[in-house]
């Protein structure tokens, strides 16, 4: 897999790029519209959904992404539980009344693989979140790395890693999906 994320045009077909982009834009719309049951269908059964923490380090003092400490450390079963909490109960207080969210997905970068039928897509995420009547909002920014897999003719998300751009999150909880 290329580490610089700039590939010769022939490596990823325009059709594949358009399909991936349309897929991720539609996925974001499902989240913003809070259609969580449909959203969950977009994941493969072997989903890996991980959000590492960030730390403040001098240059030369190791990585500022700490994969051993995680904001999300989930698979399909736990994401299903999170979705059931939101859709099947009326006591998911953190998101009821729900936040208003708007996800902006941009700066698409593609790489083939890692699997035969897989495509890796890096994107920038800017998530606007507003709760209550205060007129305030939280902005959650980060870089997603998604592995999209072709399953029976449809794209699904097999892996999502989101590296957030704050060492201390400025939102009171991550009750919204990234």
């Amino acid at each position, binding site marked *: 897999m290329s580490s610089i994320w700039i590939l010769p045009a022939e490596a990823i077909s325009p059709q594949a790029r358009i399909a991936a982009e349309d897929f991720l834009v539609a996925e974001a719309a499902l989240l913003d519209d809070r259609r969580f049951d449909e959203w969950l269908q977009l994941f493969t059964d072997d989903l890996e959904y991980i959000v590492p923490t960030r*730390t403040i*380090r001098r240059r030369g*003092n190791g990585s500022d992404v700490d*994969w051993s*400490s995680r904001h999300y*450390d*989930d698979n399909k079963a736990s994401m299903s*539980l999170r979705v059931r909490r939101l859709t099947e109960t009326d006591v998911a207080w953190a998101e009821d009344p729900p936040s208003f969210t708007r996800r902006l997905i941009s700066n698409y970068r593609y790489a083939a693989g890692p699997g035969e039928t897989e495509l890796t897509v890096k994107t920038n995420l800017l998530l606007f979140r507003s709760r209550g009547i205060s007129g305030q909002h939280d902005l959650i920014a980060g870089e997603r790395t998604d592995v999209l897999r072709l399953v029976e003719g449809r794209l699904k998300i097999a892996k999502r890693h989101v590296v957030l751009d704050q060492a201390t999150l400025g*939102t009171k909880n*991550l009750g919204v999906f990234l």
Partner: protein
Amino acid sequence: MSHVTHPEKLYDRLRATVRPEEGAIPLFVYSDPEVYRLELERLFGRVWLFVAHESELEEEGAFVVRQMGEQSVIVARGDDGEIRTFLNACRHRGMKLTSEDCGVASMWRCPYHGFTFANYGNFMGTPFERAAYPPNGLDRERLRLIEARCESYAGLIFATWDKDGPSLPDFLGDLRWYLDIFAGRAQMELVGEAQRWIIPSSWKLPSENFASDAYHTATAHAFLARLGLVRGVDFGRDGYHVDAGGGHGLGMGVHDDRPGSWFPQELEPEYAAKLSPDQLALLHRVKNFHGNVFPNLSFLIPNFIPVDGQLVTGMMLRMWQPVGPDRLMAWSWFLVEKNAPAWWKEKGRRMYVQTFSSGGMFDQDDTENWEAQTEVANSALTRPDEVMLDYTMGLDATPLSDFPGPGDVYDGKFSEAAARSYYRTWLDLLLEEGR
């Protein structure tokens, strides 16, 4: 000395309205800015505060940067092997010596003018020292870093600015018996860096919640029962409520008709070597374990949702760092037995992250309450009347006489005894009563 404008008026109001023994606490204390000034000075300025775990500082020169109240401190293992806590402040103009979260260093060189301090606190020199401070340079002793007292218990490192206060074991008191079970039953390690996030809440609300409030789980965390993961209300009721004195409190969920927590066989010999038979028996009975070391270090064994079909035991350490009267920074860590098999560490981490963390299914709902309580508390700052809150649950209950552990232990978790004790300790410190 006090930084509060009219301390006597505030003391009188606190004396008249904070009445924990009657189960009465006034709303204003949650977020009042003058109360907060007093807290920074008399509470965070004096009591033992959690700063780090020994596992973070195994290497010589290893350091982490933490907060004591609003003050930045460096916790470091010096080249002499000793762990110390220093104010993160250069003795020249007060610049921060380091802005990293952690690192390894034999000395810190101030980024402003270059004053340099060894990792054991000594002033080492500064550029062109004899030219700048002729003829002999600066006095080494006078410029030592400002150091807090630092001690550890069960791997947990605490520090205090109070040179003459109680020792750490005396400060922890009866809580030690329970902390042994939580953090001292085996050699433990903190995994990775803390997750941090900002909650617009008074720092006291979550601290009190972890010390004393099992009752909220049936409502605030009702999703568990709704999804069939627990049997109704009993997950927050059955067990013990402990007022450990000194403002420390905890609750233990026990259902004797069902098996208790499950631990890997490999670790049992270590538990047995470190715990008394009574502590070991209790460890195997508890389903969950929550508490707070006064004032703001919470601990938890969540054991609520299946991870790959197993109810493993994930452990959490959580610091509620004040960043203003109505804001806090949560610092959250996964704590695990160092000698545990890899699968146990991995499943435990997932249990912790999925239940209690920035994105945890429980934590999310709690933040909603604490934020709204804090907002409401701000209304008490201008109201003509005194809004009093009810803290009477279990006021007439008698502690068990045959429980093997110390402290006032109540049968059943529905009690606010530990919250009353929390505010008694808090009030005495603020008013400097008994000093």
